[in-house]
């Protein structure tokens, strides 16, 4: 501790030299800190950028994508970029205070889905904030049943619900994982009108809790992810933990871009068998419902246009170089860059379509 150091030093006042050294150290470090400001003066972006994310987990997919993107941006623009996992409410509050680009947010579809489900703390991001570029997709969102389950496919589940069997689906309420549940319910209502009440949500939290519900027999099907559950699907059938994929919610053309090795010992080919059209959850009787979990930047409403342009340009160059794609794909993300104007239009449409689905099933 510094206080102790100083105290002991001062006992021998002849050692003023050391104190002087300490002072020089103090002054020089401050100078170093301040002079960081000056280096990147030619870029409209501040030299210290904070990337806040809508998740509090530093082990989750949002943090991972953010770390990869922030790192690439920092190298490209020669700035410091730091990812802070503050959670949705604090992240929105932070960007609301910063219009010079010193704080930007990275999050996924939850940012508007939360609002559509009426979750506290989520406002209409298309009105209150500015949408930045999209960067990547996590195609791993999936639904699983125990290997011993009588239901082998997602169609079995829909059929069973249509024939008055109660299907309990473990999800985290109000989030992107709840969307799959809503879509499943919608598919039942399209194919067996009036029977959608047989699909019931078991509201729970972490992946651990969802798995536990399946082991306990308190859920028939759980929401999970390819990343977290793939090994469970390879356990011998007599293991109480063994599971089977029935549905992967990502779009076919997204999943097709994954590395052919897929994830773990499950190849891309095998994964595609659980996505549309092989595993069909209908939206309206003709078209299948599919959903990509997309990551994008969110800015302050009044963010300076030159900063927006600078970030678009930097990301466009990063994606043109092509190394970020390999990094993303290695972690089972699908690179998906769209500049901010295009991203805003695209996400707004996605928002409106999702709103229709949620309003119908409410």
């Amino acid at each position, binding site marked *: *501790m*510094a*206080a*102790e150091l*100083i*105290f*002991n030093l001062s006992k021998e006042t002849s050692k003023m030299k050391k104190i002087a050294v300490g002072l020089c150290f103090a002054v020089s470090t401050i100078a170093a800190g301040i002079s960081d400001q000056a280096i990147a003066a030619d870029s409209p972006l501040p030299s210290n950028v*904070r990337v*806040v994310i809508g998740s*509090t*987990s*530093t*082990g*989750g997919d949002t*943090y*991972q994508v953010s*770390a990869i993107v922030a*790192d690439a941006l920092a190298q490209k623009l020669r700035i410091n970029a730091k990812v*802070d*996992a*503050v*959670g949705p*409410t*604090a992240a929105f*509050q*932070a960007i609301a205070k910063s219009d010079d680009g010193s704080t930007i947010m990275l999050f996924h579809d939850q940012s508007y889905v939360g609002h559509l489900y009426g*979750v*506290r*703390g989520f406002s209409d991001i298309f009105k209150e904030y500015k949408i930045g570029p999209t960067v990547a997709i996590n195609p791993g969102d999936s639904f699983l049943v125990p290997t011993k389950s009588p239901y082998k496919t997602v169609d079995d589940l829909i059929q069973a619900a249509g024939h008055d069997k109660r299907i309990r689906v473990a999800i*985290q*309420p*109000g*989030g992107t994982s709840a969307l799959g549940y809503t879509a499943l319910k919608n598919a039942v209502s399209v194919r067996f009108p009036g029977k959608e009440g047989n699909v019931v949500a*078991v*509201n*729970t*939290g*972490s*992946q*651990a*809790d969802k*798995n*536990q*519900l399946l*082991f*306990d027999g*308190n859920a028939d099907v759980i929401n999970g992810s390819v*990343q*977290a*559950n*793939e*090994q*469970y699907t390879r*356990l011998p059938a007599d*293991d*109480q*933990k063994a599971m089977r994929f029935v549905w992967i919610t990502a779009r076919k053309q997204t999943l097709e871009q994954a590395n052919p090795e897929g*994830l*773990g010992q499950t190849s891309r080919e095998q994964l595609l068998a659980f996505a549309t059209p092989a595993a069909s959850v209908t939206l309206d009787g003709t078209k299948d419902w599919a959903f990509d979990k997309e990551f994008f930047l969110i800015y302050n409403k009044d963010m300076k246009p030159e900063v927006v342009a600078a970030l678009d340009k930097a990301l466009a160059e990063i994606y043109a170089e092509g190394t970020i794609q390999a990094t993303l794909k290695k*972690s089972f993300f699908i690179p998906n860059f769209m500049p901010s104007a295009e991203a805003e239009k695209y996400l707004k449409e996605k928002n409106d379509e999702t709103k229709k689905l949620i309003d119908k099933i409410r």
Partner: protein
Amino acid sequence: MDAIFSSLDVTYFLLVSLGTIIGILFGAIPGMTATMAVAVCLPMTYALDLNHGLALLLGLYVGGISGGLVPAILINIPGTPSSITTTFDGYPMTKNGEPEKALKIGIASSLFGGLFSAAVLFYFAPTLADWAIKFSYVEKFLIILFALTVIASLCKSMLVGIFSGVLGIWVSLFGVYDMSKGGNGELRIIPEFMSTYLENGFSLLPLLIGLFGLSVIFDEAQKGVRDEPADNVKLTSGRRFQWSVFMGQFANLIRSSSIGTFVGMLPGVGGSAASVLAYSQTKNFSKDPGKFGTGHPAGVIASESSNNGLTGGALIPLLSLGIPGDSTTAVLIGAFTLQGIQVGPLFIGENRATWDIMMIGLVAANLIMFGVMYFAIRHIAKVITVPKYLLYPGIMMMCVVGAYAINSGIMFDVWTLFIFGLFGFLGTKLGLEIAPFIIGFILGPSAEVYFVKSLESFGTLTIFFTKSPIAVFLWVLIAISVGYSIYSTRKAKSHERHAGNGEAFAK
């Protein structure tokens, strides 16, 4: 085997050492935790390969958990939530002039707990993981209830202690019913206009260091910040450390390490419960429970061996189910996924070399932790000779850094420090007991989720008794714990009556 030896180079052990030392630093600073140490160093591992990255992170984990004992013993501020119980007997030992002895006991116990849990992890991980998943909502609720009943054996006045504990639970429920735990995201207890700051309630760490750190500074300020004359603060005026202090403590070491490992193994129960359970069980089994709280080495041994027992325990579900056992291992998952390694039920079988290397790293980190701290202790202990007018501003700044950093930069967490500093300062004057309050606060949210979800899933109250043999066994433990507390309070009361008047309010 070749893969193992090619990774076990000098760099590997240097990284373990570096991680351990940085971890100890984070653990020793009030408000900084092992989780934070792992989180801030995670980006550094991008440049390393998996085995070298894990070396650094395992060192950080072990060092961070161990470092918490230093401020707990020396200045009565737990460096991490799991070292709360270390203050109970560690700080009294310092006051008795035995800071060095207390630190050495703590470090040696940490080493034992760490190695014990590493051994359990190595030999029984998959078996124990299969057993751990038998704990559903119901059993987890009962474990937490069990941990809550130990409040009764930790408090001075039973009624006031339980009141403080319930108050702690109540405060922990402020804000929304957390959706990420399966709640419905609705606000309760606090009014709408406060939801900007209190939507997610108070954070544990700022609350903890407010109650233990700031309130002590306020209390000293009230008394006029008088430094004891320098002669009184002798580092070794009491008895010196001797290994013989562990004589007769073997049962305590094994019991406490096992409790730590076991609690670490159950995802969602919360690591801080481990040291609380271990401390109170040791007290209950002891021949003279009256000595606890006055500087009894057995208290430090129980607390520290159990919180290091956590490390191996929390790695069990991580490496054999892909599910983190505590908040620190939740961050470790990130290190695996960034390297493209999946953790799940097949991890150990498919990554034999990584698994062996991790075990070596874990053992090495524990040994290095012991070596570094044991020989640095003489210098660390000098902190207590620093005059308070220089020490307190420094502590205050560290608390601010820790509080601000805990949720990656939220100013309200710094205000939480102040609010609970004041609360602790005034509360203790009114007889409120801080330890039960904080235990209630820590366990409250999990108690709620597991209680409500049990009823939601099963729809009947009887399920708490009929769910499984494990549930029945836990009820037996709860009954023994409650019964014993009542018995020992009665005994203490009759002692008191002989001695004369009691005191509750006139503190």
